[in-house]
Each structure stands twice: as C-alpha cells, then as structure tokens.
C-alpha cells in the first residue's frame, strides 16, 4: 500500500469526524447531535440543582418512602410542565437529587418558590364529582400494584384504615356508576368509576393498562401518607442569563487556546508540529463526540478540562518531536529516527497518561456535581491522546517522510547538518 496516502486519509477522516462532531449527523433513526446541542449542566443553561432530605425525621427513610417522595416531586414537576429533569434517589444517604433547567424564556419563573414547593408534604385527596373530599392521604394504610386474580389486568390495591373504610363505604354506596377523582395537591391523577359498594376497606382500581402505570399510581397514592416533608439542604440556583454568557466566553477561550497551542507547535516543531495540530483536532473531535453521543452533561469546569487537555495533549507530540530531533542529530536516517523516536517516547507518554487517568477517574467518583464533567473531559482527552497523539501522529509522520521534498532535517527542527 502506498503509505503516502495515509497522511491524506487521516486528514480527511479527521476533518469528516470534526464536521460530524460540530454539526451532527442523522442516519435513519440514528442521530449524533452537533456541538450546539450538547447537554449542558445547569451552570451553563441555568437551572436548579437541589438535594432533598426528609425534614425532622428521626430515622433514615425507607426505600419505599423515598420512591413515594420521588413520585411527589415528579408529579409536581409534570404539573409545572418541567419535562427535561433528572430526579434520582440516593438510597444510602436517604436523599433525593433533583436537577432541572430554568429556560431563558421563563423570565418570571420563581426558582426559589419552586424549590420550596417541590418539597412540601403532598396533599392526597379522593373527591366525589361535586368536589367534596371523601378520603385524605392518612386514611390509606397501603397501596400497591399487582395483576388481578385472573392475571391479565394490572390493578392498584388500596388498603384503608378503619376510619377510612367507614367513609369509603358510605361514599361508594352513594356513588355507584359515578367517578371518584383522586388528586395530588390540585393535580388529578386518577378517576376510577365506582362499580360496587366497598365495605371491607379493601378496594381495587382496575383497567390501568400496564403494570408500570399501576405502580406509578400506587406510588402516588402512597405519597399521600408520607409522614414527612422534604427540605433542600443543598441547593444551587443559576439564572439562564448568567449561564449562557459564561458559555460563550469559555468557547471563545477554548478556540483561542487551541489556536495558540497550534501556532506554537507549528513554529517550534515545523512538520511534526503540523502533525500535532491535526492530531489535536482529532483529539478534540473525539472529546466532543464522547460528550454528544451519550449526551453526557457538560459544565463550565468540563469545558475548562477540555481546554486543559488541549495543552496537555501536545505532550506526546512534543516528546516524540524532541526525540526525532535528537535521533537525527545522532546521525540516524529519517525513517529510523522516526521509528526510534516513537518507540522510545511511548513508555513516557503511556506512564504520564495513566497517572492522569488515575486522577480523572478519582475526580469522577468522588468529585461533586460540576467536577464530574471536568474529570470526564480530562479522561476522554487522555484516552483520545493515545489514539491521536500517539497512533495517528505516527502514521502521519511516517507517511509524510515518504515525500522526497519533505525529507529535510530542518523540517524536523534538526538543522541542516545531517542526512
């Protein structure tokens, strides 16, 4: 195979991938989102990040209680039309982590109020069609989802307290054929029709379609008897105007840093410097794709990590270029110098990258919030460095060395003395 072509193939491939990373691509149902559709953290697009814990509860909350609490939060967010959200349970620490964006078109959105409201105790009510309250959350002892006795219809089972059973018997007696509306706060969550009078305090809501729908409803009903309200003991609110300005600044800083590093490499290392610039482009492309393909959240420190790894990324090229220069000066032919240069440089590049991987992974595991993104971009940078700074660079330099006109030592920064 003509190795001269390798250089151009690598350049074209890098350019193509770079365009994909920048503008995105869509093939059938598969889509890679472009750089402008990154999933940004709340420090960039604005939003709320809060950790809720039970208020004044003398013990750790159970998993079921946390599930119920999550249901309350999600139902309320549905009511507020916040769909792009992230609600996760931290079982070990008994906490619920909530993250949602504050969109720039919601100028009047009161984020502080939203944080308070999400944590309030849920008010669950069963109401008759006239709006009179039949049952409250405390009247229900337990609610769970299961398949009915025939095994083909998902249902929610309600177990009522003695007092609740009494009230429910009265209500179902007078409401046969009518609906009972179940509300969480002021959100209607279910409206079953009464089939028969229920006197024993064991009711069933039928025809819920799927088991998931049934357990979701059961969770919502359980949340009505949750014995605590939630309090945000860690909360960060960032307005959208603050964040978007910061993004532009960081992107600008990134472009400038990239250009400066490339200029430096070109001026100082000539041909290997050019290769370093292409390798650097490939590295950044890989990092962008590693962010956009899994839609990994990118924060401001994450962008700083990306810029930092641009600086760190040329290390491999610097080591190799210095080595090639040295080997040329010691009288080796160009091809031999390139090969020895790469071989001798590999172990230092490898060791150096491994230690950065160690700290990046530790940052991802133990770092809080926005630092996760920093660890991730750093990690991707180092991994891509093996692909771009080491492998692709070697292929490109070897390929370029096949061009007679480029085979001058001064192109490799080694002066005129040797060949």
């Amino acid at each position, binding site marked *: 195979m003509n190795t001269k072509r390798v250089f151009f193939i690598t350049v074209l491939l890098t350019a193509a991938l770079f365009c994909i990373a920048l503008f995105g691509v869509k093939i059938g149902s598969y889509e890679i989102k472009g750089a402008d559709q990154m999933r940004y953290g709340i420090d960039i697009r604005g939003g709320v990040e*809060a*950790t809720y814990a039970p208020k004044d509860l003398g013990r750790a909350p159970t998993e079921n209680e946390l599930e119920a609490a999550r249901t309350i939060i999600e139902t309320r967010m549905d009511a507020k039309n916040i769909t792009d959200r992230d609600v996760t349970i931290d079982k070990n620490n008994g906490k619920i982590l909530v993250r949602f964006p504050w969109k720039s078109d919601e100028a009047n959105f*009161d984020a*502080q109020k939203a*944080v*308070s409201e999400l*944590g309030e105790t849920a008010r669950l009510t069963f109401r008759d069609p006239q709006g009179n309250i039949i049952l409250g959350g405390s009247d229900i002892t337990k609610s769970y989802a299961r398949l009915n006795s025939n095994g083909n219809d998902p249902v929610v089972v309600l177990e009522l307290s003695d007092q609740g059973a009494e009230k429910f018997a009265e209500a179902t007696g007078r409401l046969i054929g009518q609906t009972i509306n179940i509300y969480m706060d002021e959100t209607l969550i279910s409206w079953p029709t009464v089939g028969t009078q229920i006197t024993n305090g064991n009711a069933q809501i039928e025809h819920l379609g799927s088991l998931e729908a049934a357990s979701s409803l059961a969770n919502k009903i359980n949340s009505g008897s949750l014995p605590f309200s939630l*309090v*945000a*003991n*860690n*909360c960060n*609110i*960032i*307005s959208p*105007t603050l964040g978007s*300005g*910061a993004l532009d*600044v*960081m992107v*600008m*800083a990134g472009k400038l*840093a*990239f250009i*400066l*590093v490339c200029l*430096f490499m070109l001026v100082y290392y000539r041909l290997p410097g050019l290769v370093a610039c292409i390798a650097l482009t490939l590295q950044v492309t890989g990092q962008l794709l590693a962010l956009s393909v899994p839609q990994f959240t990118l924060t*401001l*420190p994450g962008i*700083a990590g990306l*810029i*930092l790894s641009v*600086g*760190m990324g*040329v*290390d491999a090229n*610097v*080591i190799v270029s*210095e080595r090639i220069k040295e080997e040329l000066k010691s009288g080796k032919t160009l091809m031999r110098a390139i090969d020895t240069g790469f071989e*001798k440089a590999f*172990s*230092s590049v490898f*060791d*150096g*990258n*491994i*230690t*950065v991987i*160690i*700290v990046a992974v*530790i*940052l991802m*595991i*133990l*770092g*809080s919030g926005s*630092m996760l993104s*920093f*660890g991730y971009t*750093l990690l991707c940078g180092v991994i891509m460095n093996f692909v771009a700074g080491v492998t692709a660079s070697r292929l490109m330099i070897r390929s370029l060395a096949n061009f007679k006109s480029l085979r001058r030592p001064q192109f490799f920064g080694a002066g005129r003395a040797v060949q």
Partner: protein
Amino acid sequence: MIKFYEHRNIFFTISICLILLGFLAAFINGIQLDIQFAGGSIIKYSYSSPINAEQAEKIVEQAVGKTTNCQLQSNTIKNEKMLIVSLASHEALSSQEQEAVTAALTHAYPAAHLKLSESLTVEPFIGQHFFTNGILAIALSFMLILFYVGFRFRNIGGLSAGTTAIIALFHDMLMVTAVFIVFKIPLNDSFIAAVLTIIGFSINDTIVIYDRIRENQRLLGRKVSAAELVDLSINQSMMRSINTNLAVFMSIAVVYVFAQIYDMASIRSFALPMMFGTISGCYSTICIAGPLWTMWQNHKNKTQIA
C-alpha cells in the same frame, strides 16, 4: 549542561521559602473554606437602581432573623450590578427563608428591578461530607500514583523513585494551596480539581525524567555517577518539559484571562492556581525530584561501601 545536582541547595531553599510563605499567609489570612465545604448561603441578585448595602443587610436580617453580610459588586464589561447576600455556615437558609429574603428586598427596593441571578445553599453537614470526599480523593490519588510509579520504576529503585516523586507532588500541592491562600480564594471543589490535575500532570514530568534516567542507566551502566546520570537526563528532556508546560500554561492562561475579564469567579479561582501549579510542576520535577533521587542513591551507595 546545567548542573542541577550541584545547585540543589539553591533550589531547595527557594522551594522551602515559598512554602513557608504559604504557611505565613495561612497564618495571617487564615484558610477560608467556601460555602460548598463550610456550609452557608449566598444569594446574588442583579439590580438597576442604587441600593445601600448596609440597609439591605438590615432588611434581610429583619426578614429571617439571621446575621447577614451584603455586598455590592459591579462589572463594567457586562454592564451589570450585583447585590450579594451571604450568610455564615450555621445560618444556612431554607428555601422558604430564601423566598422571604427575595420578597423583603423586592418590597424595599421596587425601583431596583432585583432579579435572582444565582443562589447556593449548603447545610454544614453536607459541606463537611463534600470536604471529606475531596481530601479522600487527594489522598487516594497520592497512594495510587506512588504505587504506580514504584511499580513501573522498580529497576531504578522503585521505592526511591516513588518517594522522591511523591515529595515533588507534595511540593506542588503545597504551592497550589499557597496560591489559594495568598490570593484569598476560598477552598471549594475547584481546589480539589486543581490539586488533582496538577499532581496528575506534574507526575507526568517526573515520569519522563525517570524514564530517561532508566534509559541512560541502561546505556551508560555504572560508568557515570548518579549525579551525572541525573543531570544528563534532565538536560536531555528539559526542552520537552518546558515546551509541554508552556502549552499547558498557555491554554490555562487564556482561560484565566477570559475569566478575569468577564468576571467568572468559579473559573478564575480554578485557573489561577492551575497556572502556578503548572510552573511548580515543571520546577519540582527538574529541580527537586531529580536531585533528591540522586541524594538517595548516593546515600545508599555510601552505606553499601561502608
């Protein structure tokens, strides 16, 4: 060729002086923990017409009954004025109290068009948890790096290489910490990230030099003294050390300049220590780790002969 080993005492003195300076600054300035680690609340509002900070302080104190500190800040480039309300660790605000603060201030300054720009509240026990995690992260990194370097360089005395590398890392960590203290930047997760990045990167330099020592040892055998071996290796790889650090320094300096101009505190407080850390990382490798390793080897040889 620069004789690093011969001049080691100058380098050691410089480093020790700088580290002492850091301790002195810690003594004078104290070490400030950010809200993220210490707990507390900070709320920032943008506003348009004049506000009196002391008066605002009283309004907030009346609204929530907690000791408050209010400050005004303006940024000419973004044409923005900020009112910053902060409360100490044991006074962290609940979200309801935050609403009360906003309501009271809006009521008192209807013409100022107060708008919530940013708020952060951390309960002290959560902050403590973050802080412990951060320290744990640093300790764990040190251990893993020591282990890795020791393992990779068992040929040139794994223990000596690992230990001297870790001393150089401590040096860098102290330098980064000193920058935070001297510039009065409160420690937060940027601190942890800066320290981890610098030690991950600085060890990189040290490894390159040790790698060179390993290679030269193979080439030259026992013909040369440890001092000559180290000086030769450092000089050979010095251009690489300087150039790589220059590239990293450039990229982080650009970030710092932009963060400074556009007043992005979170990024600035992270980029500035990182800039110093890069220099320290380069210095500690060339001027500290190499000479220390030589001293260790010389000492070992002496005891063997005796």
